[in-house]
């Protein structure tokens, strides 16, 4: 629709409310999946849809839609009428100044300009590397790209058109010996063009190597260990165990939790700084404006061991009398934005990996992630594999290493932080309130944590 902006402005002008905004997304995505030797899925999707939100007397109403036609005006009025009927609450949104901006993706980064044959050839090539490795039972390899144009208009005369791009791939190798089935995967992605995925053969070769070694690994005995966590799992830890606690939509409604997360409270060593940053070029959780039209920023969550900030959308910032941080994000046009992370990481410090190993008498070097979950103070996250560390030296590989515990205690048990920050942004993403997978980045250097509960057999 060429005259989309004037039409959407027209829809908004018919809404009688304190605040309203409308966000329309048009996207094209390509997905290719290989399972073993066979191409399992190849598909393209052409999406267009939007979401209208209305705020009045402290209440929100919203509706998402696919059809963009005259009926939209009626839908907008219905949402406003629904909100009007609710009992008033004392909440406010604050205000943002009028703005008109346009963010574009360089033409060279547009995956729509790359022939499907090239995308297919690349993922087949990586999949073939795994298949040709002796000992691999089967594989799964996945390619994904997305180009999205978002048009945002608000009743505060903020009008933003923002293009975004993502390309990524994932490879998984599976090994099997009788009923012992093991797998290992790795993934890579950037908010950049197709070329960023090329020349990744060393990563793929490593996937095959680890998957084969895992088949011989024994399950780790359950117990308490000193653990060195690699940058990926440490990044998952920063995101899952601490980042979610910093999301103010939850804090703003719970006084006692707010007390636990009060600015200045000490939870870690002086060396510990955890950041959530939406402005890192190329990283998966980066963008110029969030889905409420607020600019992205860099936000320190823990600075030198003490709580330094929270993640906000406009409403939670007002509720807690803090600054908007640009963390209002929606996984797609079907949803209203909620407070979400962007690129969350632990800042690097002075130690190298050898220093960390030297400090472990008997422990584990834990690598990779199968994902993690939290219920606020409790966290659980699973690694892909680990190695025993004995007298500062890595020895045999073990598997089924699942870390769990209480975040506040665990943060205090971080003993050493490495100097080797790595950021990750592969396929997958974060889930919250039914919205997922949301693109986020995460990372860390190697870190050493004392006395972690490892669930094993």
């Amino acid at each position, binding site marked *: 629709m060429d005259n989309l902006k004037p039409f959407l402005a027209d829809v908004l002008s018919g809404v009688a409310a304190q605040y309203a905004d409308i966000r329309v997304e048009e996207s094209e995505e390509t997905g290719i999946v290989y399972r073993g030797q066979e191409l399992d899925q190849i598909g393209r999707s052409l999406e*267009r849809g939007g979401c209208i939100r209305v705020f009045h007397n402290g209440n929100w109403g919203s509706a998402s839609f696919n059809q963009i036609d005259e009926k939209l005006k009626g839908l907008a009025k219905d949402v406003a009428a629904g909100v009007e009927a609710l009992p008033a609450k004392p909440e406010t949104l604050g205000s943002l100044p009028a703005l008109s901006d346009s963010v574009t993706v360089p033409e060279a980064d547009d995956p729509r300009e790359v022939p499907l044959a090239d995308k297919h050839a690349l993922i087949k090539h990586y999949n073939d590397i795994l298949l040709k490795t002796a000992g691999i039972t089967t594989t799964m390899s996945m390619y994904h790209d997305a180009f999205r144009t978002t048009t945002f208009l608000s009743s505060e005369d903020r009008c933003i058109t923002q293009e975004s791009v993502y390309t990524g791939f994932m490879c998984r190798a599976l090994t099997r010996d009788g009923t*012992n089935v093991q797998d290992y995967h790795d993934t890579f992605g950037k908010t950049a063009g197709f070329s960023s995925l090329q020349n990744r053969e060393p990563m793929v070769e490593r996937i095959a190597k680890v998957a084969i070694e895992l088949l011989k690994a024994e399950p780790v005995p359950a117990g308490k260990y000193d653990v060195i966590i690699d940058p990926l799992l440490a990044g998952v830890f920063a995101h899952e165990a601490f980042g979610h606690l910093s999301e103010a939509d939850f804090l703003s409604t719970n006084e006692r939790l707010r007390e636990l997360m009060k600015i200045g409270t000490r939870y870690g060593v002086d060396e510990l700084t955890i950041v959530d940053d939406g402005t890192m070029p190329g990283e998966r959780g980066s963008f110029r404006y969030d889905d409420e039209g607020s600019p992205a920023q860099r936000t320190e969550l823990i600075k030198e061991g003490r709580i330094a900030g929270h993640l906000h959308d406009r409403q939670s910032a007002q509720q807690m009398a803090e600054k908007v941080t640009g963390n209002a994000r929606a996984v797609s046009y079907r949803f209203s934005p909620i407070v979400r992370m962007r690129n969350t990481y632990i800042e690097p410090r002075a130690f190298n990996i050898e220093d960390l190993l030297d400090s472990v008498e008997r422990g584990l070097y834990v690598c990779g992630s199968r994902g993690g979950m939290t219920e606020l103070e409790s966290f659980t996250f699973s690694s892909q594999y680990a190695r025993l560390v004995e007298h500062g030296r890595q020895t045999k590989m073990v598997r089924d290493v699942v870390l769990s515990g209480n975040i506040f205690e665990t943060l205090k048990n971080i003993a050493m932080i490495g100097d080797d920050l790595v950021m990750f942004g592969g396929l997958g993403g974060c889930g919250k309130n039914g919205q997922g997978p949301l693109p986020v980045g995460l990372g860390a250097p190697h870190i050493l944590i004392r006395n972690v509960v490892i669930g094993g057999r």
Partner: protein
Amino acid sequence: MEDQILSLAEARGAQAEVFGSEETRTVVEFRANEFHSQESRLTHGHGLRVVKGGRVGFSSSSNPDKVGELVDAAFETAEFGKQCCFEFPGPEPSPAVKTFENRVIVLPALKMIEWGRELVDAVRARVPGLKLDVTLDRTYGETVVANSAGLNKRFARANLQLSATGLLVNDGLVWISEFENLSSGSPPSIGALADRIEERAILARSRARLATGTYPVVFMPTAVPDLLYPLLVGVGGKQLEKGVSPLIDKVGRKLVDEKITIADNGLRDFGTASAPFDAEGVPRRRIELFDRGVFNGFLFDLATAGACGAESTGSAVRDYTAQPQPGKSNIQLLPGAARLNETLAGIRHGLLVHECIGGGQSNVLAGDVALNVSSGHLIENGKVTGRVKDTMIAGNVYEMFANVAAVGDTVRDLGSYHVPFVMFPRLKVATRD
């Protein structure tokens, strides 16, 4: 629009299938005892599968202005697509199943808000200090499958579910979740929901300690899906086709305790995944996956059935943006003979599990689980006592289910799972105490 897309694809000399869905979803949310939001989602989109030169292509779109591009994209992908090893099914009658109730469709959003408020008030009166989140989620819509073999079927479904999560801050955070499937049109049982939340809140006030060791463990119905999920990953036809299911060559063998009978029932009235036919138009049915411990067979869609020399079990699942794949519908663990109070009375020192986190994160295909017990209680001399913290259960579900002490006589409807409690005589439990 299905007909238009189908004709465009057929005109280019292909076999084709259009899957369309149109859905209206209304979600009412309370957070921390307060009304938070009311959201509507109107979804309308189509997925197109074409078979050209023996290969399968796929595209999807929610943009009615781009029907031509949708068809082009499907043919473009078919050049690289998977070899087709199935035929689209022709018209064939579908079984009867109740998938919608008019009272659910016409329910005003304001009524949903009123119910949420009633539950919040009832719980607040009984458990001061507890912050309750309540979600009422109503979806209704129509699904269409049409293909070149002459099939053209549609059905309507309406689901309404209430879920509630209470948070208590008391020596750490305590979460208490509740759920009720309201798809048959009955109003929520506010009193019973509030009773259960209150009962657990009272128990959670005291803290109990359990040392790392091996104990009898009772999984309440709310925690049983965390164990059934990994047990059933291997029943997918996709896992069989790819040779990665641990259940390969096990059909007809007794793999788990004879107290265990598990059915995949796509024809359960008002089940959240119930339908007269699957996402490819094949009639749904009730499939016994485990019969008194014996593994009976896999779930197939058309493509995996074709690849494995089997027939579709009517288990194709998808939304319009994706190609079908075999998946579970409503899972039923059939009740046993055990009463909860008698079972608990027989346990001298054990663990009662209400809720876990961390399901699905370990090597689930192999049946491995590592569950962090987020809501669990010590059982001492037959009595449920205080709440345990920092407690993990790790193991292999095939091994766990091989020895089941008791299966409860009462089933809880959790939407897509319909399950009683399950007691294991000996499970390894790791704690920080």
